[in-house]
């Protein structure tokens, strides 16, 4: 039931860091040394964010964290291709994408600490907040793309989802609508080989990228551990979207090196060997090797990247542990945008109730 993995995919950087060349070169012609180094920095920083958040969870500061470990190239490569006015509809694991969108670091941990149901203002960074219902966000992206058409704009929407999500009706309907309206949307599937304990072969009998053409959507399979290739295919898709060419589907082959979330124990269902195989294709190591070959991987550079990652991690940790606790009565806010007699009555009652409890507590204090 396993979809072939050895098929052709777009790759610009081999696992050992050798630069290959081909038709996709033209999409990364402008990627100079500075850009290469910044891509490297971003990947290291988000891996560090991920490690720090995992640690925060272990320390009881976060309730849960879904690690992105291993998926840095997919996320940085694709997100760095976007324009500010493009809009992202992601799932819950796209911390790297959020980082590229310029999310406030504290906001990134807000949901996972249990302090809010979402971390940031979607309109500040043009990225919707994490979607937990598998696949639901793909339709939102298509609707956003339909609105772009109505507005006569040349922005695009991009939606991130996993290999497991491809089984959901919503994701398939999203392709129907995107094709029908020729919406400027990119379907970015991070095929990290697993949906919790289920291998991708249970969801897809043939490689995932083959699904889209049947809906009339061009697709491309890319080495998702190759940041350059991911950048290239996303740029191509964006160009198509901006010029009236409609949707594109990208399957990025990558690997979830960590657990599904910090609550998961992958040793229950997968082989240690598999992890080893994928470790050899690490997205950061291969860019490091390429930088090395180009003489860019200097001690200075490494130190500056490390400093940056440390700073970011420190800032995130501080933001997380010092986050203001939510106010009790916030629990009633923003359900509706105007008064609602049912809820207002409950809120009023609960305020009275709390006051009674406080009185009781105060009375109890008094009599002690």
């Amino acid at each position, binding site marked *: 039931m396993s979809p072939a993995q050895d098929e052709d995919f777009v790759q610009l950087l081999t696992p050992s860091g050798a630069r290959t060349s081909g038709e996709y070169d033209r999409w990364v012609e402008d990627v100079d040394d500075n850009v290469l180094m910044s891509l490297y920095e971003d990947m290291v920083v988000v891996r560090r964010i991920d490690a720090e958040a995992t640690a925060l969870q272990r320390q009881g500061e976060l309730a849960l964290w879904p690690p992105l470990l291993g998926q840095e190239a997919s996320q940085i490569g694709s997100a760095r291709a976007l324009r500010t006015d493009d*809009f992202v*509809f992601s799932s819950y694991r796209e911390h790297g994408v959020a980082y590229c969108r310029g999310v406030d670091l504290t906001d990134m941990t807000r949901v996972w600490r249990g302090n*809010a*149901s*979402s971390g940031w*203002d*979607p*309109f500040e960074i043009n990225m*919707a*907040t994490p979607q937990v*219902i598998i696949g*639901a966000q*793909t*339709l*939102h*992206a*298509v*609707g*956003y*793309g*339909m*609105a*772009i*058409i*109505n*507005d006569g704009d040349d922005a695009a*929407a991009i939606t991130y989802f996993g290999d497991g999500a491809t089984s959901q*009706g*919503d994701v398939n*309907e*999203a392709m*129907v*609508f995107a094709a*029908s309206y020729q919406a400027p949307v990119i379907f970015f599937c991070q095929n990290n080989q697993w949906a919790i304990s289920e291998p991708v072969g249970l969801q897809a009998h043939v490689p995932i990228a083959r699904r889209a053409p049947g809906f009339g959507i061009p697709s491309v399979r890319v080495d998702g551990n190759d940041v350059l290739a991911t950048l290239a295919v996303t740029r191509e898709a964006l160009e198509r979207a901006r010029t009236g060419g409609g949707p594109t589907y990208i399957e990025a082959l990558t690997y979830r090196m960590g657990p599904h979330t910090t609550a998961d124990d992958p040793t229950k269902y997968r082989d240690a060997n598999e992890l080893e195989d994928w470790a050899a294709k690490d997205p950061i190591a291969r860019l490091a090797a390429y930088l090395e070959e180009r003489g860019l991987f200097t001690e200075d550079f490494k130190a500056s990247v490390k400093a940056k990652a440390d700073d970011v991690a420190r800032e995130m940790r501080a933001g997380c542990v010092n986050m203001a606790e939510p106010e009790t009565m916030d629990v009633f*806010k*923003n*359900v*509706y*945008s*105007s008064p*609602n*007699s*049912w*809820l207002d009555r409950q809120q009023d009652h609960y305020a009275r109730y709390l006051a009674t409890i406080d009185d009781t507590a105060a009375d109890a204090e008094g009599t002690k």
Partner: protein
Amino acid sequence: MSSMTFGRAINAGLRKAMENDPKVVLMGEDIGKLGGVFRITDGLQKDFGEHRVMDSPLAEAGIMGTAIGMAYRGYRPVVEIQFDGFIYPAFDQIVCQVAKLHYRTQGKVKVPLTIRVPFGGGIGSPEHHSESPEAYFTHTSGLRVVSVSNPQDAYTVIQQAIASDDPVLYFEPKRRYHVKGEVNEDIDLGAESMGSARVVTEGSDVTLVTYGPLVPTARDAAVAASDDGVSVEVIDLRSLAPIDFATVEASVRKTGRLVITHEAAQSGGLGAEIAASITERCFYYLEHAPVRITGFDIPYPYSKLEFHHLPDLDRILDGVDRVMGRTNSLSSLEG
């Protein structure tokens, strides 16, 4: 003032909303050239174009999900669900997204969707074409739910629903589409809130609460009861979530008796919430337990038997007799 059918009144309300706000777009199956299977959107695609009135692929989750996406970009989509029984494929998008996005994002994302649902029975249709699913939505926090019973309200409330920044389910009693009535098209939309109930007929003995398709039936029942010496106050809820309990409460404090009628199944239906809430609010005023006259706890039946399932004048009057302590179908039991 002009006289028009219920269906036409919705059409006129949609047209007005579209004229006033270019961000209002319509989405749904067969709503374009055909004007919908009930012709409610008749002529709108011709006049506003394919970008404002969009025929959608045959997928309700897809329609709802893409409407949400358009809302993210500032649009105010009005979605038509072709028949009540076809709303369920969109249930996940409604319950987990439409209802929750505003809360999830601390008010940052507004979802000013209007979801139009022709609902209810009595038109002789096959399965899935006659359902009353409103209670699923009135139990869903984050949604507003309305139903209308006459052309004027149809015209007014559809515009209020579209203007609302909250998502609104707008239930249209399809068996009343052809009823005619006077409509004032220059009504001040802000004058009366979408959320208020309306006293249809004043009365002093019994409060009869209903909404949508059964409002005319309730009005007829009030007339019949008055011939029998019982004065029935009929209330048309209009808003089903939240319900304007203040209006119902005031009435029940006066009458001391409450009958509720709706087409939906009884158990867990809206009648339960009304009975429970009014009992909480008016316990010491009640002369009798609130009585519910509703559809049975069955799937909507085939049409040859649907008028047994649907509350009618006689069943409502039997309920009135019950709360009045007059001879009724349960007399032998109630002793």
